[in-house]
């Protein structure tokens, strides 16, 4: 067989559109995931049992169920409670809630990686739990977390392809649309896969750069 990518050229603008939607969904999803994750991760180590249990349950459930089901629950399930969300919003919330679970676990690991003595020094100096967390523990935890966090970002970009099931025209959806009119399946999905690879490489590289910058300081 021969590959002929030229049939895809007329649909170039669609791929660009899809790429932009994927990038947007990933960035929004990640931002939400980070906010939720920091909260959940911090609660995971707080010395108040019910809060710790709550955070642990969240992480347990989120990590133990497929993202696809979580997306379906939000997009198809919530309307029965009278909550109708636009597909893109539902998608971002789904990704955010999902990655919040994973980021939460990363944050917990990062926090627990800070030596106990740093807490104790702060405590004797009169710093409150919250102050210690904010000024001393989290800034260090973030550094410990960066490698795992980079992995999570890459995973999230790839998993955003599930948004196609909510009929969001992100990259994978665009691929399906183009394939259905050109029948050039192999070329289309090679291109789509290549774009994902490019995206994940850029994201991974950016985080590695950040890691280096922080280590030097």
């Amino acid at each position, binding site marked *: 067989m021969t590959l002929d990518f030229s049939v895809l050229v007329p649909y170039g603008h669609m791929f660009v559109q899809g790429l932009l939607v994927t990038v947007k969904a990933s960035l929004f999803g990640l931002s939400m995931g980070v906010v939720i994750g920091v909260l959940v991760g911090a609660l995971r180590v707080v010395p108040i049992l019910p809060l710790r249990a709550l955070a642990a349950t969240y992480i347990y459930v989120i990590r133990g169920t497929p993202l696809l089901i979580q997306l379906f629950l939000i997009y198809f399930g919530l309307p029965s409670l009278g909550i109708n969300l636009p597909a893109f919003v539902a998608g971002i919330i789904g990704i955010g809630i999902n990655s919040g679970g994973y980021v939460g676990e990363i944050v917990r690991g990062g926090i627990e990686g800070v030596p106990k003595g*740093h807490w104790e020094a702060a405590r004797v*100096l*009169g*710093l409150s739990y919250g102050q210690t967390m904010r*000024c001393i523990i989290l800034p260090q935890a973030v550094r410990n977390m960066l490698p795992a966090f980079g992995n999570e970002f890459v995973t999230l970009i790839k998993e955003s392809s599930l948004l196609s099931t909510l009929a969001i025209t992100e990259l994978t959806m665009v691929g399906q649309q183009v394939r259905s009119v050109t029948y050039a399946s192999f070329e289309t999905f090679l291109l789509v896969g290549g774009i994902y690879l490019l995206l994940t490489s850029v994201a991974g590289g950016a985080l590695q750069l950040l890691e280096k910058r922080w280590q030097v300081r």
Partner: protein
Amino acid sequence: MVAAVEVRGLHKSFGALTVLQGVDLCIGEKEVVSVIGPSGSGKSTLARCICCLEEIQQGEILLHGERVDGGRLRNKAMAHLVGMIFQQFNLWPHLTTLENVCLAPVRVLGLAPEAAQERGAALLERVGLGNKLGARPAQLSGGQQQRVAIARALAMEPRIMLFDEPTSALDPELVGEVLEVMTDLAASGMTMLIITHEMLFAREVSHRVIFMADGNIVEEGTPEALFLNPRMPRTKSFLHRMSAHFGTALVAEEGGRR
């Protein structure tokens, strides 16, 4: 006069393991007391109870007449009473030395950043690190880090300072600079409780030396009395093991040969 530190009938256990079994201790204002004793005897635990890092099971701890155990005192009041120096320094590695020293005064005492920095710089100057304000802990030697830790504790203006083996993690050539700072601090009239294996230093700087074993104070007295004339067999054998190890004649020759 009210004692600076008063510990009455202190019991502390970790689960089934009883570590302190009814410790009584009184330290006067401006007194310098050293605690020596074998590993696992509960020295660190005693210091950690005094600064409320550990919950206690029984007994009372009073600092300058105020009951502090059981989290009775607010953070700020507690930090004004007592500072603690750890074996591992426990500096915060993401902050500069000056930031390490200034953080608590700003956050806890509510000092203006400029005022805190002025205080911090003066304290770092006092411990001989006036030229290292912008350095990060990783760029400092262990001795320098421990001196920063001392400046950081002093920035809260505590009335009592606890030292838990402040030089045990240091290379031998760096021990002196830390002990020097502590000697100066003692001379300035600070109330100090020093857990140490530096017997010569303990002998020189302390008004009183306490020997602990198995969660109890076995013997205490002036440095001369305890080092030269220990009464209890356990004290004697400990001191002899120490002087054999360090090759120093801490104890009068005839002390342990009986």
